[in-house]
């Protein structure tokens, strides 16, 4: 990771001011994404992974707001841009894919119209040229007979086909980064693999970096170059995907890996992590994972660990590694 990062998130903090105090949904999250790299972000619901994605594309739902830290794209800060300037970046430089393809497309317009509209918004070309580009894109994402399909409406496409259209829409203007928020969660298992393979192939061909938000470790293992594990709004562990899967360091990641069924391992039962992730209103002092952690010691209950290096490019936020070496 010597080259300049495409995306740099530094100390990001997302807050939701509410009647009963302010909720911190994302707390001191930092990571880089290199050009063309796929970063998987994994965690349970409410861990702050989708919120991080929304913050990057500048579409946090009010009253949520970025309360600290910075987000930079190609060295330029984008977290404090006025709405109109950020709008020009969205779609053109950062594409987005959302979870549910059934509801991501406007039901009243043909997919062609939605593609053409997106293309002409970001580049100065004629309707005709935009339509040709839309046809090419549909072809590229594997929609059969695009000439016929382009004028059809979203309800005439199946879920998997719609997600292909959504991917085409995200790739419209050749963005450098795509934030994909649970792109396969709403799909049939058999379709999931196809969509992931498609996303992976297209991004490799276009040199597009991806921030892949999911709770599916399998998808991450298959797709990502690096993975960030989030827990209660913070990154618990981040590193190359092989390292993290083979040799997880943070006790939470260890538990997470233990809960995945593996081929060829005749486990009687899967290990599970006792307890559940704390609600945002009840995050404990010290390490947020300490009530569930089997290795917990005194320091974990009072002091919050920062990320520390555990291997090359591999960091974990755990006091076990405070002296530089693990003593697990």
């Amino acid at each position, binding site marked *: 990771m010597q080259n300049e990062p495409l995306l740099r998130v530094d100390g990001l903090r997302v807050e939701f001011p509410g009647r009963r105090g302010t909720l911190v949904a994302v707390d001191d999250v930092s990571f880089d994404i290199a050009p063309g790299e796929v970063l998987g972000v994994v965690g349970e619901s409410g861990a702050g992974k989708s919120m991080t994605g929304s913050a990057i594309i500048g579409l946090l739902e009010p009253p949520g707001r970025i309360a600290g830290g910075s987000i930079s794209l190609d060295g330029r800060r984008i977290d404090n841009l006025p709405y109109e300037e950020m709008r020009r970046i969205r779609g053109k430089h950062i594409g987005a894919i*959302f979870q549910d393809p*059934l509801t991501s497309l406007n039901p009243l317009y043909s997919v062609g119209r939605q593609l053409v*509209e997106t293309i002409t918004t970001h580049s100065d070309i004629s309707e005709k040229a935009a339509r040709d580009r839309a046809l090419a894109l549909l072809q590229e994402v594997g929609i059969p007979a695009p000439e016929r399909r382009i004028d059809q409406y979203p309800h005439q496409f199946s879920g998997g086909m719609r997600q292909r259209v959504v991917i085409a829409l995200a790739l419209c203007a050749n963005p450098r980064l795509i934030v994909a928020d649970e792109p396969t969660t709403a799909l049939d298992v058999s379709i999931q693999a196809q969509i992931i393979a498609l996303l992976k192939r297209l991004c490799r061909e276009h040199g597009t970096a991806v921030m892949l938000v999911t709770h599916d470790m399998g998808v991450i293992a298959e797709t990502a170059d690096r993975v960030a594990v989030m827990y209660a709004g913070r990154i618990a562990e981040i590193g190359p995907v092989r390292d993290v899967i083979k040799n997880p360091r943070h006790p939470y990641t260890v538990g997470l890996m233990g809960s995945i069924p593996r081929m060829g391992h005749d486990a009687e039962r899967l290990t599970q992590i006792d307890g559940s992730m704390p609600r945002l209103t009840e995050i404990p002092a010290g390490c947020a994972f300490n009530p569930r952690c089997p290795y917990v010691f005194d320091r974990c209950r009072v002091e919050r660990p920062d990320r520390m290096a555990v291997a090359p490019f591999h960091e974990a936020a755990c006091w076990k590694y405070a002296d530089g070496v693990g003593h697990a």
Partner: protein
Amino acid sequence: MIAFVIRRLLQSLIVMLTVGFVAFSMFNFLGDPINNMVGQDATEAEREHLRHVLGLDQPFYIQFLVYLGNALQGQFGMSYRLGMPVVRALAERLPATLELVFCAAGLALLVGVPLGVYTGLHRDRWLSKVFLTLSLIGISLPTFLIGILLILVFAVYLGWLPSFGRGDVVDLGWWTTGFLTVSGIKALILPAITLALFQLTLVMRLVRAEMMEVLRTDYIKFARARGLTNRAVHFGHALRNTLVPVITITGLQIGSLIAFAIVTETVFQWPGMGLLFLQAVQFVDVPVMSSYLVLIAFFFVAINLVVDLLYYFVDPRLRADRAVASGHG
């Protein structure tokens, strides 16, 4: 699509038959029609003779068929009070009411939709709050009070606009219009505003609620994520998705505007059907009352048909005869 239209037409026919039956029954339930025609001193034989001549001794279903046959030929009988065919009486009054109603509906939509969009998009601006508060007044004040207040201010105090009547009208042969004269247009302003105010607030609140609902959807978020301009997101994507309920309500409301313009017409002495109906009720002019019922029902049915057809143009999910995948609509 064609099957749908035929189905809807058949349903409309059933509705009209039912309404026709009710209208027909009014003759028998509101007193003996023979009594209304002959004097106090007519003999029983004369009554029987008249009953026979008019076919009133036939069983009711024969009478109903005769009634329907006449209705289809545009014969709804003579008005007791006016001494002229009901159809002519209604036709004379119809243009006044329809011009008033369409001005009111147009005003309600032209003002109500933009206000609804504005207040839906900018919930927290003080101007939105002002509009919302005013709309509460519009919804809760009764029509006659608004009419009287308007007359008081613009006709009595300021003397800008006439307080009653239709002004000078131009007779086009089959239609009389007030649009072609200055006094006709001036006379239209106050009653149209009076009639529109309730609908306007209704449309505004409906559009606002629908906009707020639609703006929360995933496809709006995705449209923003694609970097579309606010204008495209708000008017191209959000507003169009609010149209189906707005069309429904507007259609129903135009029907009620026609039927219930009575109050406004009374306040402004507007020479429309509502006023005619009110006078008919006072004189127990049954042919006028029953024909009015049939006519209003016809308007409702026709408008609903148009509304259903409009859905087809707005929402492609209803258009598809051969949906490939199941939608969620």
